[in-house]
């Protein structure tokens, strides 16, 4: 696994940089691809063409990444057009940060904007907030689900 990583990392970043136009996003797409590889390692390492497996998985990761980012971009733009943005950005679920609900929503919205509008990677945004990549993903998932529901109610 380590050998394959060292062998493929440079190539995969070069390919992803060409497609995504951003070195940082390319590096994240490659790391994301190896995360998937880890969970499928038994199958992938036994495959007759592990390099091909990685490149094809990288392609699919990049497609997912771009679709999601485009969808989130539309969501943010739609949210910003809502007149009562402040009202929109208040969590009203009982189980979410009961005491600090409104602040949490605004912070998550800023996180979403950093990732989508500013083009930050999940890792960059996570490090800015002092949280893990997984926590960053969860927060983004939470705010986008919330915004989608709220916007559909408007």
């Amino acid at each position: 696994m380590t050998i394959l990583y060292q062998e493929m990392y440079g190539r995969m970043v070069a390919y992803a940089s060409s497609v995504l136009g951003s070195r940082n996003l390319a590096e994240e797409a490659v790391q994301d691809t190896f995360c998937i590889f880890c969970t499928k390692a038994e199958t992938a390492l036994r495959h007759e063409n592990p390099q091909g497996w990685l490149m094809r998985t990288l392609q699919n990761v990049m497609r997912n990444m771009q679709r999601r980012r485009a969808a989130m971009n539309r969501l943010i733009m739609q949210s910003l057009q809502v007149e009562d943005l402040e009202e929109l950005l208040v969590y009203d679920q009982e189980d979410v940060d009961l005491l600090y609900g409104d602040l949490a929503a605004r912070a998550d919205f800023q996180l979403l904007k950093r990732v989508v509008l500013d083009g930050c990677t999940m890792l960059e945004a996570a490090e800015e907030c002092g949280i893990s990549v997984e926590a960053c993903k969860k927060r983004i998932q939470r705010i986008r689900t919330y915004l989608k529901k709220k916007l559909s109610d408007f």
Partner: protein
Amino acid sequence: MSAPEEKKKREYSRYDQMSTAELEQLLRLDFYGSEGGAADLDTILYLSDLLARRNGPSDPEAAWEQFQTKYRPYAHGRSLYDFEDGEDVSPAKAEQVPPAVRPRRTRRLRRLAVLAAVLAALFLCGMAAQAGGMDILDAIAQWTDETFRFTSAASGSGTGQENTVQYQAPLQAVGMDSLFPTWSPDGFTPGELKITELNDSVSAHVNFFGEDRTYSVTIVHFTQPTDNTGTFEKDDTPVEEYDHSGQTFYILSNIDTLTAAAFDGEFMTMICGSLTREEIKAVIDSIPSPQALQNQEQVQDSPAEQG
């Protein structure tokens, strides 16, 4: 070396001659033109390897360390961008694997070669598209500044509006008729108009041929939002900003060619080739301004009203 290996080496050698920007654009075109992953992975691996070697050493050790500490602990078999709501992506596809043997390889190589030809046509003189490092939102904000400028004196001595009259209908069909320059310097004749439709963009391209010089006009309509408009190669001459009808054209020099590029977040206009600064500005000035189009319509309407 076996015959197939020799043939393969010959087929790939063409890529060695391409510039880095061209290779990157080729991979990008292939990616966006192959939904479902039809491209030949051997070729992609070859091109990626070529680019990686040209880009110099990456730092796989540091990346590996970051992978082990920041990403791997949270690897659950789903992409970072899969949010478990089943919307518009198919996570199961992420680990779909290509067959090791690809009988359609030759056809796919040909397909890349066709893309290479399109690329060469699109980016004459070895230049590949790009609004380098420009943030779309910033660009839109910047381009809303109105400026006023008299048309360059040189614009009176060129070929005139005959240039694009023949292209009016096809350009109109793709919504670009009002974006195309209507003037070219003396001695240049336009070639064929080429319209290329990809998944997320439509581009119109015309080469102009002079006695010993050429230039091209390319307009790309990005039909989906993108922050990826490509990269221009340039030398260290300062970039000049040139305003025309409220839109800023960035004039870039690359040894013996000039490129003028403008992007409004949807349409990217590129004029590229062996032109002087005065000539390229005159070509830009011949792009109809909204005010000029309005005046033209009024002039056309007047006789009808009088009649």
